[in-house]
């Protein structure tokens, strides 16, 4: 039980990160690769929030009624993740628009078949 308590969030976060990376490395369909990227970003965000968590802490918001002696979780990672989520959606939107244009040009989304450029 303590193992679960100590590591379950890290397992979840890095599980997502590795599944996302795996999709990006192995799959050839461009939309699939972008789905992998989205899963990877979710994993990174979950990891950052898990780093800032403090056991039995409350959300870092003061309200009139709250008892002030309670401990609050670290607000910094939450601020970072808000930024990271927005950056992620910007990258995803741009990637999808590129995918649409690529489909216009080639009629396929298979990265193996799109090899005009030589290395």
């Amino acid at each position: 039980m303590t193992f679960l308590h100590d590591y379950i969030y890290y397992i979840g976060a890095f599980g997502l990160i590795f599944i996302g990376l795996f999709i990006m490395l192995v799959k050839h369909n461009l939309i699939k690769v972008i789905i992998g990227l989205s899963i990877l970003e979710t994993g990174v965000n979950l990891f950052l929030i898990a780093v800032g968590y403090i056991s039995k802490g409350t959300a870092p918001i003061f309200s009139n009624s709250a008892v002030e002696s309670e401990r609050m979780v670290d607000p910094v990672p939450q601020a970072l993740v808000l930024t990271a989520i927005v950056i992620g959606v910007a990258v995803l939107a741009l990637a999808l628009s590129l995918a649409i244009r690529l489909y216009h040009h080639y009629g396929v989304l298979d990265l193996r078949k799109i090899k005009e450029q030589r290395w």
Partner: protein
Amino acid sequence: MKSIISLILLSVIALGIAISLDKIPFGVPKTKIGDYYIDKGREETGAANIVTSVVVNYRCFDTLGEVTILFIAAIGLGAVLATRRKKEKREIEPASLVLYAGCRFLFPLILLFGAYISIHGHLTPGGGFQGGVVVASAFLLAYLGCRGRRVSETGIKTVESLGGLVFIVVGLVGLAVGGHYFLSNFLSKGELNSLFSAGVIPIIYIAIGLKVGSELTGVIDHLVEESE
């Protein structure tokens, strides 16, 4: 074969990260910066929501960068998709009556909710980003329900620019009057937990809400336009 190599590569990375994670126990306080924000945040910024005070005041430069990134994505998407736009007009199949009526009913409510979230960012969870996204989702709904209706591109562009300029101008006013620091909180902090408090935070969050909302609406607009 490729997947096996990938798995091996990934397990090497996993091993390395596991070693590093060993020094970062879960649920244990690790930071002095977070404590400082929790102790001093209310006095220094006047916001009850400490995350907001970090996002809009302590780390506001990140936030400026972040709205810029969304701005870039919106422009980039327009540049990528708009280069060869088809001019032809196709018959648009109207949505069913239920969807249409539902959208007409929900659209103003969602906008109102988005505005509420943006304005109360310093008091309750939420803020400009979340509010902006809610506003954009209202427009997404409008595209689904009331097909053929378009938001004018000029309007989106204007709101987008003005939102960004308000952010920068507030920052420059802070540089000029607020003790020579860019984006310093030069207005009075007001009383904690009241709507008109926390100095420049609500102003900036409204600007962010408008900017994020219009940018994401622009993104959806470009994509939908292309797909019809």
